[in-house]
């Protein structure tokens, strides 16, 4: 019979095949690169709010984004920005850029003359289990818990820098569609008598940027520790 005729061949080749399989090294686990997305709000025709010293919100957020990118780059953290110039970027495009970057932190930068200190906003979506194909408008739901942790880290850094911080939750179209841990930062004048500062105060701007950079550095360490855990 034919199958008996070739069975000796199978008996010889099988151990060889097994040996070659064992000799191949296991594919390395995919390394997650720590990337930060900076989303300077508004741009182009969408000027955002008008600040007290005549500057527009879109210019302020872009300047802060550039400053923060420099600080992060100096610390070896790769940064992806949603805009580098005075260009209009719609919320869908912003979320697309963030999701494509597969970032570990996404910061949307806003500013306003109303309020006092720094406001941190996390999406108001209810936490949900990660899905293979999340709905676009609620993609952030799977990352909300990590966003809350990121907000906690940023809060600590800002408080450490002597700023007053208010944490809140809200619904913003771009943030709700991001799959990364996402926090919206709104910078308003510091009304605290001891540390009062306007938005045009260069020192205040520098302190905010430095605190945000320190927070992201801390977040990178935390993320690394979590991933290193068995």
């Amino acid at each position, binding site marked *: 019979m034919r199958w008996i005729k070739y069975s000796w061949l199978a008996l010889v080749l099988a151990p060889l095949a097994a040996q070659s399989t064992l000799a191949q090294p296991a594919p390395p686990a995919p390394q997650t690169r720590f990337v930060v997305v900076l989303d300077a709000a508004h741009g182009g025709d969408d000027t955002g709010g008008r600040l007290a010293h005549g500057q527009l919100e879109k210019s302020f957020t872009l300047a802060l984004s550039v400053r923060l990118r420099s600080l992060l780059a100096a610390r070896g953290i790769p940064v992806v920005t949603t805009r580098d110039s005075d260009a209009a970027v719609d919320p869908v495009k912003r979320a697309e850029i963030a999701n494509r970057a597969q970032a570990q932190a996404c910061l949307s930068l*806003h500013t306003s003359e109303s309020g006092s200190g720094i406001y941190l906003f996390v*999406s108001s979506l209810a936490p949900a289990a990660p899905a293979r194909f999340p*709905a676009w408008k609620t993609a952030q739901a799977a990352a909300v818990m990590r966003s809350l942790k990121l*907000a906690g880290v940023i809060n600590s850094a800002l408080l450490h820098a002597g700023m007053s911080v208010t944490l*809140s*939750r809200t619904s913003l179209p771009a943030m709700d569609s991001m799959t990364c841990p996402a926090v919206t930062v709104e910078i308003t004048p510091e009304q605290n008598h001891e540390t009062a500062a306007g938005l045009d105060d260069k020192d205040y701007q520098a302190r905010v940027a430095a605190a945000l950079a320190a927070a992201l550095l801390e977040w990178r360490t935390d993320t690394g520790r979590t991933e290193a855990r068995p």
Partner: protein
Amino acid sequence: MIPRHQRILFVLLLVASLAMGAVLWLLRQHAHQRLLAGLDSAPTSAPAVAPAEQATLLMANDSDGSILTQLHSLPLPADPGALARAVLGKLLDLYATPDAAHPVPGGASSVLQVFLLPAPEITGAVPAAGIPISTKSRTVVILPRQFRANPPAAPLQGAPQAGPLLAVVNLSGSFAANHPSGIETEMLTVLSICGTLRANLPRVTQVRFLVDGQQRATLAGHADLTRTYLTGDAVPSNEAHP
């Protein structure tokens, strides 16, 4: 020289015209008399002046991001749509005062209309079940649904008689154009409007916004006006759970 028969014809036509005019005037007088006879013009009911009642307003405060309940006495119409417009008008009047804690120009005229419709069921993602995170005394806390206890629904005239209601608030374009820009300040305005509607019309569970009758992306660049807001999301600090 005009012929004699033409003069006679002219006089006859003139007399006929005058006679017809007189008849028309008499008929009009008769019709007017008949109309008045069918109406009873006696004053049987007093002019409708709504008595002053207590209205609950949820007032926002920019300095600490709080929303606090305040009671104000104002004339409240019986019609729920007019009532909603009256309380929102009062709220925005207070925001337009020079010493307002949440200054927003515009005043009562910024609320063009408030429509009350049966509320559709909301499907899909729900807002977060309350995780009040705060370093300050935040007041806008999104509470879990099981903690939201709406007061019993009162019967409303001029609105669907049963079930939850959707309020469509039509704001003026000048209000949106002059509103201070910022996530916090815009959300405080939106949530105080939602909370005020809930406090005075407990059956209003959802709120949508229009600006000059049209849908608008944001109030002043930040607060999303394309979504439906749940009135249960706006909880004043003195009612918020710890």
